[in-house]
């Protein structure tokens, strides 16, 4: 049965994508397929998490070829959490897309591409093979390339070109690292690598291993948008339709973070004094540059885009600290960030729907006109700034505790300062778009004429989840800790992939 | 015996190929160069294929070599024709030593 559940997160979106492709003549059909597909995916991800919680790490050997010869799909709790988040974001954004994506984009394959993207993301979280991870990366990337560029004119094209180019460089570097790694280790199965790597590392000059590790850090770092490799993100995320930005904001960089965490807890764990310190330094710089970028911006979505970067810094800070608590905090942070950031993008879409702009200098009067939307903005925004009792607070708290416990005071100071600056820029959005009066604004009640009901549903759903992650911080953080414990003690993972699975 | 024949065929083929290259590099205009690439190169490759077939000596290799030769013989002149025709209409100049052009001024 586990073989069945394990393949679903790949097979369901793939099926949905194919069916949506075949239904190219019927827009309604595509929409229906899309929603049903996303719902089933969410359901499957929930069941998978439940299975993992009940039975522990699950593995399925594709093609019935034992590891390390074939490709293994593995789900530990970390993967299961990431998958669930994928399903969730997919579901919310599909609902949102129904109103946010125009008919032309829909009839030109939007839904199909959407599900291909989910397929790539899910595959990345499932696979236990490093080269297969590259393949899933590419599935996700190419789908995202198309979504990024689809239907765009000048600005969107300019953004897409940068997005595509820099991500291609990342793929090239990843492939380079893979080639070298295969040359050294003769295997690509991550568990196999994990079990052999101590031995390999011992026989090689330290510089070799460090260079290899660095290549992975850079390749994944570009995907995850860390300092100083993040340029593609702010260059592009504000250009496509909001639903697309929201999906990207939620999922894409997280795959890079996931890959970093996976590889640097399973394989490269023999020189943490170098590798993880490097990651920690990158984390700090990422936070700082990201948040400063956000502070410098005056456009809703651009601010959010830069904040993705600074939040990525937090997410890999836990990896850099490399203790079970820190990893747990990172995992919790990822869950929090995916939900909150996607939601903020969704809110920006609703704002754009009302005002046809996202320029804060022009926007205004939203609090007066749309208190419901305002409150739904406040929840993820304050959460992002790490204010209690919202999810972001617990994420920050975990990292701060982990950092202080390891006497990494500098990174803690950075984390707290960046959180304050995050608050500053969230408050800036609030001040400008919601509090300020719109200059020469038409009757604010005219906003009421534009129905936002269909926007409110997915936004409310995600806001509810943000609240839930905060209020149920105890059990959810405990879950993150279990996942982190599995990461910190990879022997079980290795054992299940190589012997039992 | 087979090996000698095979090597000879290969050598002849290689020589023709080299000649084709030199011709394409040396000849004064496109159309004259095309004579080279169509005839010499095609022949050269055909010899090499034959040489390979002789070398392996089995039916399958022979069939394959023949199939390749046939294919090249069909495609090479057609390709040259299409290209020459397009080039002519695109105004690629003839060598100054060309004596006459009876195609000139045709409407299509």
């Amino acid at each position, binding site marked *: 049965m586990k*073989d*069945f559940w*394990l*393949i679903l997160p790949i*097979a369901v979106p*793939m*099926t949905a994508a*194919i*069916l949506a*492709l*075949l239904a*190219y003549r019927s827009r309604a059909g595509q929409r229906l397929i899309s929603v049903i597909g996303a719902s089933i995916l969410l359901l499957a991800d929930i069941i998978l998490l439940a299975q993992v919680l009940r039975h522990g790490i699950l593995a*399925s*050997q*594709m*093609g*019935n070829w034992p590891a390390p010869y074939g490709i293994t*799909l593995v789900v530990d709790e970390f993967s299961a959490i990431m998958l669930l988040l994928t399903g969730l974001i997919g579901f919310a954004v599909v609902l949102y897309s129904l109103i946010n994506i125009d008919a032309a984009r829909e009839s030109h394959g939007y839904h199909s591409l959407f599900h291909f993207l989910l397929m790539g993301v899910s595959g990345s979280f499932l696979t236990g093979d490093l080269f297969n991870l590259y393949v899933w990366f590419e599935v996700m990337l190419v789908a995202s390339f198309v979504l990024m560029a689809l239907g765009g004119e000048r600005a969107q094209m300019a953004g897409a070109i940068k997005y595509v180019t820099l991500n291609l460089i990342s793929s090239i570097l990843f492939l380079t690292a893979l080639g070298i790694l295969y040359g050294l280790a003769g295997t690509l199965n991550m568990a196999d690598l994990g079990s052999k790597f101590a031995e390999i590392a011992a026989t090689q000059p330290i510089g070799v291993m460090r260079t290899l590790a660095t290549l992975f850090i850079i390749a994944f770092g570009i995907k995850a948008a860390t300092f100083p490799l993040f340029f593609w993100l702010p260059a592009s995320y504000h250009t496509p339709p909001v639903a697309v930005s929201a999906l990207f904001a939620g999922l894409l960089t997280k795959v890079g973070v996931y890959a970093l965490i996976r590889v640097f807890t399973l394989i490269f764990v023999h020189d943490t004094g170098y590798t993880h310190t490097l990651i920690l330094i990158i984390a700090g710089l990422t936070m700082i540059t990201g948040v400063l970028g956000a502070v410098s911006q005056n456009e809703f979505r651009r601010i959010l885009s830069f904040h993705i970067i600074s939040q990525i810094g937090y997410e890999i800070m836990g990896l850099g600290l490399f203790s079970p608590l820190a990893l747990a905090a990172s995992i919790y942070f990822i869950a929090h960030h995916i939900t909150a950031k996607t939601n903020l993008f969704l809110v920006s879409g609703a704002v754009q729907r009302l005002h046809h702009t996202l320029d804060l200098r022009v926007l205004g009067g939203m609090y007066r006109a749309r208190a419901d939307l305002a409150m739904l903005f406040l929840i993820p925004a304050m959460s992002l700034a790490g204010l209690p009792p919202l999810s972001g607070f617990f994420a920050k708290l975990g990292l701060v505790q982990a950092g202080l416990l390891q006497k990494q005071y500098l990174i803690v100071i950075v984390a707290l300062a960046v959180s304050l600056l995050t608050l500053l820029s969230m408050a800036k959005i609030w001040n400008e778009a919601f509090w300020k009066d719109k200059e020469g604004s038409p009757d604010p009640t005219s906003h009421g004429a534009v129905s936002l009901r269909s926007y409110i549903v997915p936004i409310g759903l995600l806001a509810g989840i943000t609240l839930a992650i905060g209020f149920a911080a105890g059990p959810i953080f405990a879950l993150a800790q279990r996942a982190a414990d599995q990461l910190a003690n990879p022997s079980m993972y290795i054992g299940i992939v190589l012997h039992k699975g | 015996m087979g090996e000698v024949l095979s090597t000879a065929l290969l050598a002849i083929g290689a020589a023709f190929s080299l000649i084709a290259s030199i011709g394409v590099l040396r000849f004064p205009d496109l159309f004259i160069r095309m004579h080279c690439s169509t005839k010499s190169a095609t022949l050269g490759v055909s010899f090499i294929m034959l040489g390979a077939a002789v070398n392996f000596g089995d039916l399958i290799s022979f069939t394959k070599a023949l199939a390749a030769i046939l*294919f090249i013989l*069909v*495609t090479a002149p*057609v390709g040259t*024709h*299409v290209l020459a*025709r*397009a080039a002519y209409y695109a105004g690629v100049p003839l060598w100054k030593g060309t004596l006459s052009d009876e195609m000139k001024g045709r409407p*299509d």
Partner: protein
Amino acid sequence: MTSLILHTATRLLMPLLLMFSLFLLVRGHNQPGGGFTAGLVASAAWAIYALAYDAATARKAIHIEPRVLIGIGLIAILFSGFTGLLFHQPFLAGQWGHLKLGETARLEIGTPLLFDFGVYLTVIGVVLTIIFTLEEE
């Protein structure tokens, strides 16, 4: 293009090339070839056709919308993967049977071949989609 010679030659070459592509596909499991190469050869054949005439003529000749071909190809791949699950094995576990062809010869047939066929169709669908699209611009 309006070249009589090219048109005639293309009509001659098309079946040969398609045949050759099937040949590459079928023997790919044992010799160089396989779905991807075969698919490229087949699409090259259609591409020549599209260039010799035009994309609209080629579309008419091929009967089926190339994008649908992509879908069918991917479905074949997915289907070959799911048969493993039907036999309580993991996804993509190959299932084999054979057809007796005379006394000694027998043709082995298995889901990996279906998989390869899916690759073949997808490749054709993709290359044709791209070439037709660009050609129609």
